[in-house]
Structure formats: structure tokens, C-alpha cells
């Protein structure tokens, strides 16, 4: 069928415009079907579906009974959601700053032509290979006030020492942060190290000739040169932060009380635990909005930048 169609088209070409080129490069198009389906049905379709349904009052089952922004109003007046967003904000800001600083510091140290570079790099990066569940459970154990860090420091003679982040709702999010940093900094270190290795050796020689100190060279010359690497790292950390879920589930299950809830957990719990679909859809749409805000500068740099070249 396809072949005959094609033959006929060929014959007509002299006086008609070339018809649909769907059969040209056919194998390639067939091979691209999974990619096209993923991009359209899943990424666009499913996200769109959820956004549309976030304006309905779906409860147990999704239905198209539109109620405007009701779900969003309810969402932003829910204490649990507000705590989730606040936690995400604190966690995100600290995680961003510390990951960038520690990641860059470690990379810079490793780049100082030291011995055992591979050993150190292996040590800093191995947590990244682990599951968030594993990370959360280990740190849950280390931060356990009865047996962990607190009891050891007390055992050393400092009886009033208190460090129980996982049982204190005011600082629980920092307990999660310690675990998150442990897992995530190695990746950023690796990216930074690749960036540092890409910097021309002559820059270092030039600053040496000019008598600029090492630290100043990093701050004034190297870091500005590594702007694209920092942007990549920033986007990577930020999009990871919004998705934080398993770490919290494993380490605190959102507790004590609801003090370490995060948006991703709110979505899961409302969708599958409390079966309040409309709320879950509204909350996940808000998560998408957060990511879009983060992504705008990145997309601008990546795609807007290319046009200039």
C-alpha cells in the first residue's frame, strides 16, 4: 500500500506539489513513536489533564465539575500545605547555598593537584549512588537522641547537650537537610570539578604572574568563568529539591506531627491516602508552577543563548 502510493506520487510530481512526505524516512518515524508518545501523551497530556482537573471538585473519582479556583483557595488555607511550602523553602534555600558552597569547595580542593584525588572523590560521591530511603534511614539512626550523636556527646560529660532534630518540630527540617546534603553534594562536586578542569591552565599562570592570591583568583576570576556550570548545578539542585519525597518519608514520615511535611508528600497523601483528588491536583499544579519559575532563567540561557551564536 505504502509503496504503490509512493509510486503514484512520483509520477505526479511534475505537475503537482510534492504530497505528504509521511513515508519518507519511515523507519525513523516508527522508531520515534515511543519518544513522541512519551513527550505528548505523558509529559504534555498527563500534566494538562491534571491541571484541568485541578479546577474541579473531584473527590474519589476525577470528574469535570468545574469550581474555579476553589481547590487552590482551600489549598492555600490548609495549614499542612503552608507548612509543606515553608519547609520546602527553608530546605531549598539552605540546600542550594550549602550544596553550592560545599560542592565548589570540595571540587576546588580536589583540583589543587593533590594526592589520593580518586580516593577522596570516591568517598564524596558514593552517597549519591544510594537510595533516598537508605539515606533517610541511616540518618534517622544517627540522629536518634537515645543512641546517636546526642547520647554520645552526653556520655562524654556534657549532660545538657541537646541535639534531637528529628524529635523537635522547630528544627526537624535541618535534620533532613543534613541527610540531604550528605547525599547530594557529591554530584555537584563532580560537576564543579569538571568545570574547573575545563579552565585553561594559562589563567592560573597569568594570575600568578600578576601576584593574585589563590583564594582571590577563585573568587574574582574562576567563579565568574564558571557561570554556565553554576547555572547547571543550580537547576539540578533546584529541580531535585522540589521533588523531595522519599527522604522525608523514610527519615521522619512527615513528623513529629506534620512539622516536616513537604509538597510532594502532600500530593501523594491527598491523592492516594485521603482520596481528595482535586486537592492533590491543585497541589501538584502548584509544584509545577514552582519548577517553571525555577526553569525560566535556565531555558532562557540554554535556548535564548543559542540563537546568538
Amino acid at each position, binding site marked *: 500500500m505504502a509503496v504503490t502510493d509512493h509510486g503514484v506520487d512520483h509520477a505526479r510530481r511534475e505537475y503537482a506539489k510534492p504530497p505528504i512526505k509521511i513515508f519518507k524516512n519511515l523507519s525513523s518515524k516508527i522508531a520515534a513513536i515511543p519518544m513522541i508518545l512519551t513527550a505528548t501523551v505523558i509529559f504534555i497530556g498527563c500534566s494538562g489533564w491534571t491541571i484541568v482537573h485541578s479546577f474541579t471538585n473531584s473527590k474519589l473519582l476525577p470528574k469535570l465539575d468545574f469550581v474555579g479556583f476553589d481547590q487552590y483557595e482551600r489549598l492555600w488555607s490548609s495549614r499542612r500545605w503552608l507548612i509543606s511550602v515553608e519547609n520546602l523553602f527553608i530546605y531549598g534555600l539552605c540546600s542550594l547555598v550549602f550544596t553550592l558552597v560545599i560542592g565548589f569547595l570540595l571540587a576546588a580542593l580536589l583540583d589543587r593537584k593533590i594526592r589520593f584525588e580518586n580516593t577522596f572523590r570516591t568517598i564524596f560521591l558514593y552517597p549519591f549512588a544510594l*537510595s533516598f530511603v537508605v539515606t533517610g534511614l541511616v540518618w534517622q539512626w544517627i540522629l536518634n537522641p537515645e543512641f546517636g550523636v546526642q547520647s554520645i556527646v552526653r556520655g562524654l560529660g556534657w549532660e545538657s547537650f541537646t541535639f534531637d532534630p528529628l524529635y523537635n518540630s522547630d528544627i526537624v527540617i535541618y535534620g533532613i537537610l543534613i541527610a540531604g546534603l550528605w547525599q547530594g553534594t557529591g554530584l555537584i562536586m563532580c560537576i564543579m570539578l569538571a568545570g574547573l578542569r575545563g579552565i585553561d591552565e594559562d589563567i592560573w599562570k597569568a594570575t600568578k604572574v600578576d601576584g593574585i592570591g589563590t583564594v582571590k583568583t577563585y573568587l574574582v576570576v574562576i567563579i565568574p568563568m564558571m557561570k554556565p556550570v553554576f547555572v547547571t548545578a543550580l537547576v539540578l539542585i533546584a529541580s531535585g529539591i522540589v521533588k523531595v519525597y522519599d527522604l522525608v518519608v523514610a527519615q521522619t514520615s512527615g513528623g513529629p506531627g506534620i512539622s516536616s511535611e513537604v509538597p510532594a508528600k502532600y500530593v501523594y497523601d491527598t491523592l492516594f491516602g485521603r482520596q481528595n483528588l482535586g486537592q492533590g491536583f491543585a*497541589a501538584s499544579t502548584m509544584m509545577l508552577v514552582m519548577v517553571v519559575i525555577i526553569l525560566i532563567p535556565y531555558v532562557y540561557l540554554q535556548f535564548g543563548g543559542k540563537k546568538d551564536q
Partner: protein
Amino acid sequence: MTRVSHLTTADAQLQGPKGPKPKRAFSGANLFIYGTLIVMSLYYLLPLWVMIVTSLKDMAEVRMGNIFSPPAEITFQPWVKAWSEACTGINCDGLSRGFWNSVRILIPSVLLSITVASVSGYGLSMWKFKGSEVFFNILLLGAFIPYQIMLYPIVIILRELGLMGSLGGLVLVHMIFGMPINTLLFRNYFSSIPQELFKAARVDGAGFWAIFFKIMLPMSLPIFVVSMIIQVTGIWNDFLFGVVYTKPAIYPMTVQLNNIVNSVQGVKEYNVNMAATLLTGLVPLVIYFISGKLFVRGIAAGAVKG
């Protein structure tokens, strides 16, 4: 005249000595560098150490002692218990069930996602058609969309396909969400292969599949390994998809681990919990330590786009 000579000396200085930097072992800077690195290493190694020592103690010693101290008497009982006796709900057959579930999820997921991603990446690099780049860019941006927004519609799709709560459904989900990064990886790799090779094969009459199987595949073993590392660790460590798209009988290891450790009933057996945690982390750790540089290359490829 003086200016010129000044320039030449500066030039000579810029060239610098060609040999290796002379090493002074005990300079202040070195002390700072190694000191910081060693202190940081302790922070990174501590949890692994705590996991290992706790899992080798019996409960009496865990209650008595310091979580950082090595076991006075080594026992493997917690490992045995974690593997074959630990309870989740009514099932008391240990983590082994989760382990085998994860293996049964892992193998088809990795094979399917790599197959699909390699073919897509190959098509995108050598057989571009109108619109192919558009779909590819959507795919890449899709990697940043929070999974939460797609969770429920995918439940509906899987239900329609009759795959909800089954291994097949989870495999499909892993294939979908592994696609952006792996397609990118393969596309970039195939793009770096000289076009002449492709053109020569075309002249000889080879088509889409012939070129893929006979020319590209044999050349791209390293990228397959990198992609496999990404997928194996990613799928093994997944928690969210496992908990949403499967049912308790086929929960992957991470979900079962969480259920064992965070279950509210019974006395907390910290040594068994740590043994279970370590068991779950073992597979990605082994892959990490064996693959070394390739693992780094994989994450670098994933991180630094284009």
C-alpha cells in the same frame, strides 16, 4: 627597548616551567587542603561506618554502647534476620522478597528503556525528520516536570491498559521516565560518530536498522554501559513509582525496607534495620565501586546538557 625586554621576560614567565610542580609535603596550604578533605571524608564515611558496625552488633550491645564503636562481638544474626525473617505487615519472609521483586522489576525495565532510548537517540542524531527536534526538546523539558503532576493520569492509563498494580506497569513507567536522560545520552554519543561512516553505509544501501545494528551498536558499547549504570541505580533506588504503581506483594526492595524499618508495631531492632538498610544499598554501591569513572561519566553526561 626596555619595554620589549620587559615583555619577553613576562612572556617567559607565562610559559612557566614545563616540569611537574615541585611538591612540598608540609606547607600551610597543603595542611589546610588535606585537613579539610579528611574532615569532610569523615562526614561522608560516618553513616557507612555506623551502618556496618550497628548491623554486626547484637541488640544488647546496641542498647549499651556507642553507635560509632566497633562491635565487641561480631554477629551476623541481624543480617540473616533482615534477609529472611523481618516482617512487613503479616509477611515475615524478610527483605529477600523485596530483593527479588526489585530484580524482576530491574531487568526488564533496564533492557526496555535502554533499547527504546538507544533507538530514539540514534534516530534523532542520524535520521532527523521534521519535528523530531521539537519532540526531543519537549522530552528534555519533561524531565524537569515534577512526577507528582503525572502520577494520577498514569494510574488511569495503566488501569485502561490492564497493567495497574502489575510488574509490567511499573516497567513501562520506568521506561517512560528514564527516556529523557538516556535518549539525550545516546543522541549525543551518536552525533559524535563521524558522518562519513553513516554516509558510506547509506551509499552501500544500508537502511535505518541495518546501520543501527551493524555499524552503530558495535561502536557504542561504552555508552550502553554508562546508560545501564544510570538506569540500574535509578530504578533500584526508586521509591515513589514502586509505592504508587505496584501492590504490596510485588513492592520493590526500597518500599519494603521503609515498611520494615518504619513499622510501628513491635520492638525496634536497630541492628536488623541497619542490616536491611545496608542490604538495600549494596547493589548500587557495588555498581558504583566497580564502575568508577564510568559512573562519574554517566552523571556528568546527565548533568551537563548538550
